[in-house]
């Protein structure tokens, strides 16, 4: 399992989202990572543009036969996933341990 822990509290700036997308896509396409966990513990804000990047990442993972999970999402941000029904698209876990157990 590859764990990505975001350092930026606010995933909103366009440049950051672009770079983030490129790095994550590289992990999947170039490095062939099959199990990816995105840890949102340090993130207190997420824009809909960032959500779009996550959706694209999820598609890439699935296309490569891999699995993406998200964890440690704050209640306010989880509400965004719930309102947009993206909690049905993404596999969201409470924490890293929960995600690891789910990968097994």
């Amino acid at each position, binding site marked *: 399992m590859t764990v990505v822990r975001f350092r930026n509290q606010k995933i909103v*700036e366009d440049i950051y989202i672009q770079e983030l997308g490129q790095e994550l896509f590289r992990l999947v396409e170039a490095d062939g990572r099959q199990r990816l966990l995105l840890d949102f513990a340090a993130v207190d804000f997420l*824009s809909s543009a960032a*959500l*779009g*990047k996550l*959706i694209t990442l999820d598609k890439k993972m699935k296309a490569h036969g891999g699995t993406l999970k998200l964890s440690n999402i704050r209640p*306010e941000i989880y509400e*965004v996933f719930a309102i*947009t029904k993206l909690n049905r698209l993404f596999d969201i876990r409470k924490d890293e341990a929960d995600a690891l157990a789910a990968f097994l």
Partner: protein
Amino acid sequence: MTEEKWTWQCDRAIPSDAHLGRRMLDEVLDRLEDLHWSRRDIFAVHLAVDEALVNAISHGNGSDAGKRVQFSCRLSPQKIRVEITDEGPGFDPQALPDPTAPERLDFPGGRGVMLMRAFMSRVEFQDRGNHVVLEKSRSS
């Protein structure tokens, strides 16, 4: 209807630059923090206003730096009102497709207006759709 007693206001016109828009938004959020608005309410305002600014800058003004976005903010002890106007052709917010429909769930965009409506107390598009009023009543 009782007129709101605004205790702070700002009116700006900025070029269509997302970075400038976010700096302006940060000033507003700092005000809310100073007034001890809850984290949840500040998150709601942050998300909704950010979406509205991005819409105005990118969709309304086509990210054309020569076009401006008018931004006004009013704060009272219990309410915030933000009005954003772009120079674009406008749009019909009633005609937006439902981003939660199963066939659209994995589309990367199209959620901004929905999130604005979900997190603010009032969202109203005026004129040709290039002017939006966002209001949030403080929850605590």
